[in-house]
């Protein structure tokens, strides 16, 4: 398969993971590896378990079966959470009255073990400015988050997720409610983070168009892992063809 990926280090290993909500099977025997430098798109119809899989990887849900290893450690023994960035789906369900500024929201991402206080503060300000610049929100840093539009809020949450310069960035449908032009610039930005900052990116999306532009790996999920591998290969695969021809529902018939 992909020779560069073979050489690269495995950052995340999902091994035979299954998950149920009551009697409903959400994930069944999913296994996949993610390597340094991957820009992985996770696609699949609504309710196919994409968010569930991300939450299991992040330790927010316990799998009923199987294991997850991050950076070589099992979830139980993992503690370097600052190396992971996460933008949850529907991050923009913000309480409009919560008195918190853009800067303070991004600052939340800087929670870490104690460093020297003063140096930490200066570094922190620098990191916040850098993150806000990436998402084009520097000018609004003192605005109250509740006064921003949904798309602007989404960008702030992305800034919070990258402020630590995480090794792996998880984004769960981050461009819901973001206008087309901003979306383009946003994916451009993810491309830069992926190439220049060597950030590994896991992106849950319904937007097949974007998959073509920046992504180099694809995981197609519907309870089971239907396809996982190289992006170019994916475009030639049956899974992709059926998706293009029949839309998502063809894939969802394979329950």
């Amino acid at each position: 398969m992909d020779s560069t990926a073979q050489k690269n280090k495995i950052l995340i290993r999902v091994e035979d993971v299954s998950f149920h909500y009551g009697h409903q099977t959400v994930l069944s025997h999913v296994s996949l590896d993610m390597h340094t430098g991957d820009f992985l798109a996770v696609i699949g119809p609504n309710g196919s378990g994409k968010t569930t899989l991300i939450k299991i990887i992040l330790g927010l849900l316990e799998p009923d079966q199987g294991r997850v290893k991050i950076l070589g450690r099992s979830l139980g023994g993992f503690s370097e959470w600052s190396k992971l960035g996460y933008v949850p789906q529907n991050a923009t369900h913000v309480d409009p009255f919560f008195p918190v500024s853009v800067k303070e929201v991004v600052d939340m991402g800087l929670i870490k073990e104690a460093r020297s206080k003063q140096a930490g503060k200066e570094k922190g300000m620098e990191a916040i400015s850098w993150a806000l610049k990436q998402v084009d929100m520097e000018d609004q840093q003192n605005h109250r988050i509740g006064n921003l539009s949904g798309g602007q809020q989404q960008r702030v949450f992305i800034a919070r997720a990258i402020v630590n310069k995480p090794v792996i960035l998880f984004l769960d449908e981050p461009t819901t409610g973001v206008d087309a032009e901003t979306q383009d610039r946003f994916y451009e930005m993810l491309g830069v983070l992926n190439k220049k900052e060597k950030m590994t990116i896991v992106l849950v999306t319904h937007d097949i168009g974007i998959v073509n532009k920046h992504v180099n790996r694809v995981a197609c999920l519907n309870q089971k892992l239907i396809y996982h591998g190289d992006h170019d290969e994916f475009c030639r695969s049956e899974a992709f063809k059926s998706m293009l021809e029949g839309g998502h529902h063809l894939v969802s018939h394979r329950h």
Partner: protein
Amino acid sequence: MEAFLGYGFLQRALLAGIFIAVACALLGVFLILRRDAMIGHGMAHVTFAGIALGLLLSVVPLYTALAVTVVSVVGIIKIKKKAGLYGDTAIAIFSSAGFALGILFVSLGRSFNVDLFSYLFGDILAIGNEEVWLSVFLALVVIFVIVLNYKKLLFMTFDSESAKAAGIKVNRLDMLVGILTAVTVVLGMKVVGILLVSAMIVLPAAAGLQLAGNFKRAILLSVAVSVVSVLGGLVCSLCLDLPASGTIVFAAFIIFLLFFLIKLRRDRK
């Protein structure tokens, strides 16, 4: 004013009052934003059982109140998680059970007397020497713990899922906030009494939240409102010969109203 300060009882009241005011306001901001404003009210009812138990057993009621309240808050949080109850339902169950138990203790101990009333309606001006130091110490602990965990508490209050993903032990902090609330309710009771203690937690924070554009300012403003209410309330109550608890809480309410009106005007512009 200087003449007043010569009185030991006033010095003690001011000292304890200011520290407790700061603790109440700090905690109040987090509780309101977590939609947990009523927990103070619920815990106050449980405190009643603790006080009545102390009077029944002739133990210093502050100690029994602390014990009973802390145990109940742990119970509320556990039940909420395990039984999948809504937060306000769990609070309603514990507060009514607590109050019922309190009534039973009171009648068993035949303690319907001045002592009990000073706990119901508050009597900060009668606070004793030992109680002052205990109150100041506990208030300092509450303040210290909140300041130390400030960023984590803010993160999980704003967005608990992401906070969890960032490695914050959200369940542990939930429990911590609960225990701090229990301690603060018992402290606030010393100032304004069981019946008004939730006001000490909710009013200054609600006032601060009206006008603040960021979180730091919300915290500072709430603390300021709380301290001013206690100071102003105490002085007014002495000058006008009114009960301290009612005056303090009413002062806080007036400030809340003022801030609310300022906000209305500002929003209209």
